[in-house]
C-alpha cells in the first residue's frame, strides 16, 4: 500500500493507504477529523470542502494518495487558541447556519473566495459559493456573513 505524508491542521501524519481511499475518509475515519462531513457522491454539495495547499477542494473527490505531501486545512484548524476565525464569527453573528451540516464547507469555500477577491459583491459571493449547497438557510444570511467576514478579515490584515 502506498505510504503518504500529509499535514492536517498543522499536524504531520504518515499513513499507509489503499489507493482508492478518499481524502475525506482519511480525514474522518483514520485521523478522527470528523469536522468535515460528506453530503454527496458527485462533488455537487461541497460539504466536504477543505483547503489543500491553501486552495479549496472537495475532499470527497480527491484520493488520499493525490494529497501526498500536501497540507490540508479543515474547519477544525481555523480557530486559534479558542478564538474563532473572522469568517466563523461572521456566520455566527449573521445566523448563517441552521442544521450546520453544510457549514464547514461553506466557511472553507468563503475563505478561499476571499484570497483573490477580498471585497466580493453579492453576485460574486453567490457565484463563489455555487459549489456548496445548503438546504436550510436559503443562502441569504450566508451571503451576508461572507460579506461581513470579508470586512472583518480586511480589518484584521490591512
Amino acid at each position, binding site marked *: 500500500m*502506498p505510504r503518504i505524508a500529509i499535514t492536517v491542521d498543522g499536524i504531520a501524519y504518515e499513513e499507509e493507504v489503499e489507493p482508492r481511499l478518499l481524502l475525506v475518509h482519511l480525514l474522518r475515519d483514520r485521523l478522527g477529523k470528523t469536522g468535515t462531513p460528506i453530503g454527496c*457522491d*458527485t*462533488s455537487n454539495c461541497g460539504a466536504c470542502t477543505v483547503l489543500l495547499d491553501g*486552495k479549496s477542494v472537495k475532499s470527497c*473527490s480527491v484520493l488520499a494518495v493525490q494529497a501526498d505531501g500536501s497540507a490540508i486545512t479543515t474547519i477544525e484548524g481555523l480557530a486559534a487558541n479558542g478564538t474563532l476565525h473572522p469568517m466563523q464569527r461572521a456566520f455566527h453573528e449573521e445566523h448563517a447556519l441552521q442544521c450546520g451540516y453544510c457549514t464547514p464547507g461553506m466557511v472553507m*469555500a468563503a475563505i478561499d473566495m476571499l484570497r483573490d477577491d477580498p471585497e466580493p459583491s453579492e453576485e460574486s459571493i453567490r457565484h463563489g459559493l455555487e*459549489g456548496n449547497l445548503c438546504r436550510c438557510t436559503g443562502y441569504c444570511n450566508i451571503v451576508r456573513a461572507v460579506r461581513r467576514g470579508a470586512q472583518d478579515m480586511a480589518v484584521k490584515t490591512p
Partner: protein
Amino acid sequence: MIPAQFDYLRPATLEEACQALAADDEAKVLAGGQSLLPLLRLRLAYPTTLVDIGRLPGLTGVHDRGDHVFIGALATHDEVLRSPVVRAGCPLVALAAATVADPAVRHRGTFGGSLAHADPAGDLPAVVLALDGVLVARSAEGEREIAAADFFADYLETTLEAGEILVGVKIPKLAGEWGFHYEKFRRTVQAWAIVGVAVAVRRSNGSIQEARIGLSNMGTTPLRARAAESALQGVELGEAVRQACEEASADTAPPADLHAQPDYRRHLARVLTHRAVRTAAGTP
C-alpha cells in the same frame, strides 16, 4: 459511495506513464480526477490501474508560443481562466473555463482531463473545436498532433490510442479583430449545459467576416456549426445575423435526456448562437 479497488502508479516520467498505459487496456489516466472520481465512487468505472500523471513535470502551465498558446494538459481550469497568456491569446478559453463546475472543482480539474474525458456536455471540447485547437499526445513512439476535429470520436471517446497521453493543447492565436463569447444554458448554475455555444467572430465595417462556432451537447461529440459559420460570412450586423444563426442546429443530433428533448436543444442552439454571435460581435 466508495470506489472499487484499483492499483495505483505514480510514474516519475512520461515515458513510464505511457508504458504503463500501453501495458494495460483497462488502466486509466488520473490527472485532477474531477471527472473520474465521481464515476469511480458511483462504480460506473472499474479501472484496473490508475496511472497518476498529476505530478509529471512538463505538462503544467500555460505558455505563449508566438502564433499559438500552449496549454499544458495539467493546467487547472483555475490557472487557465486566470492566465494573462490565455486572456490575451485565446480569451474564449478563459470565458468557458470560468463556467466549468465550481471554484473547488476548478482548482483540481485539468484542461487536458476535460478534453480527454470528451464529454460532449463539457464546456471546453466545443471551445477547442471552435478555435481549431491541436491536441498534442505522447506515446512510446513519440509525439503526435491531432486536430481537434479529429480528436473527439464519440460519446466519451477520443482518438487517443492505448499508451498515448495528452500532454497539451495548441490554441492558435487569431489575427485581426476578433470577439468572443461562450453562452452556456443550464437549469441551475451547477448543472451541466443543456446546450453551450462557443463563438469567435471577426468583424469589420459593420459586418461579420468570419465566424467559428462550437456546440456543446448537441451530439455525441462537440460539434462545429459549419452551416451557420458559412451563413454568417459577410453578413451585416442586424436582422441578417439572426437569420444566419437559424442554421446553427443544422447537422446536429442532440440527445434526449432528463434535462431536455432534441427539438428544444435545436431551438436553444439557434437562439443561443444568435446571442453569442451578437455578444462576440460587440453588438448590444
